[in-house]
């Protein structure tokens, strides 16, 4: 019996280490409290008065982030007034990727005039709690009576190359569904992205 348990635990551990997966839709979103580029600390609980939050794991050099950056800013500009602001979290180890240092993040936020916080996941606890694996990766959270629940995970839309050729605007549609009192469909999508750089 004990042996079986060990085997089971070992299998679970192997599976977990093999493939991180985003936390599933419907589960409670882990809280976070991280340093913003302006020096302030921003927590998920700061958004208690919003309808939800669009948490996006992002970074500076990833070409997919660059391709989607303006669209992600547009998501904030469209949906923050309706209760769904964007928050960027940079999960990358800046030893391996110096372009993701706090200084470089500050530069980027100011160059692109980010209208939302750009937080540094210094201890890399937050991205692991969310099961994020790449940048950019979206976790759309819905505020249910003060606790945040995951409503959508995935990518911005179905065409990173050409914003004008988008057929399915997944993230935008997901927020619109929530605003209409519905569940996003699809509730999860996948996309090519830059693997998150984990500290050695």
């Amino acid at each position, binding site marked *: 019996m004990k042996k079986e348990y060990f085997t089971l635990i070992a299998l679970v551990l192997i599976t977990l280490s*093999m493939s991180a997966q985003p936390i599933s839709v419907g589960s409670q979103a882990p809280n976070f409290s991280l340093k913003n580029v302006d020096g302030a600390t921003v927590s998920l609980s700061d958004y208690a008065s919003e309808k939800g939050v669009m948490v996006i794991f992002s970074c500076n050099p990833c070409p997919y982030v660059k391709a989607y950056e303006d669209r992600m800013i547009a998501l904030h500009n469209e949906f923050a007034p309706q209760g769904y602001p964007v928050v960027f979290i940079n999960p990358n180890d800046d030893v391996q990727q110096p372009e993701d240092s706090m200084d470089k993040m500050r530069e980027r936020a100011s160059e692109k005039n980010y209208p939302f916080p750009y937080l540094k996941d210094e201890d890399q606890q937050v991205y692991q709690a969310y099961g994020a694996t790449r940048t950019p990766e979206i976790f759309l959270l819905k505020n249910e009576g003060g606790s945040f629940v995951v409503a959508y995970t995935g*990518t911005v839309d179905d065409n990173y190359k050409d914003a004008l050729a988008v057929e399915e605007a997944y993230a935008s549609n997901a927020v619109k569904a929530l605003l209409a009192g519905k569940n996003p469909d699809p509730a999860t999508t*996948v*996309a090519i*992205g*830059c693997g998150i750089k984990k500290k050695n």
Partner: protein
Amino acid sequence: MFTDLSHSVIYKTNGMKALMLFLISLVISSFNSIDNSYLGFNESAANYDIRIVDFQQLQPLLQINNDTIYVVNFWATWCGPCIKEIPYFEQLGNEYKNKKLKILMVSLDMADDLESRVIPFMKKNNMKNEVIILDDHQSNRWIPLVDEKWTGAIPATLIYGNGFREFYPKEFTFSELDEILKPLFTN
């Protein structure tokens, strides 16, 4: 080489460029005349046929059913950890060259970057493994067809053949690759 794709777009360095490369190589070789590996590099440099495919064209290469083991690595020139593991896949190609092992490096670089980034990168790193560019923005449709548990983060590698099939959404070292592949050739 992987099976031919009759409908794929084929890129070839044109004759002029090949000539230029040859002339440049002559100049370099005068500085570097005893480097044997250089000859192999020159040969392949004049012959960079990089196919640009969509997923429908790639998919058959992910399920070839014969007595060969296939290693399919998803990478891009902009992906730091991918670049780090590329020499291990080259080493693999070398050390298993007498075995029935084929390696396909599927680049997720943008097709527009083929000449400006991908080919220069391959030359600089003396890549001998076959490279193909997957240019298909419908990633939400095709990623799950490669493997259900893949979230789309790269690097990622599919190893299959002879009844074995495993997907590895991770960065490899050479010894990790070797440990997986060695037992597949012991029978």
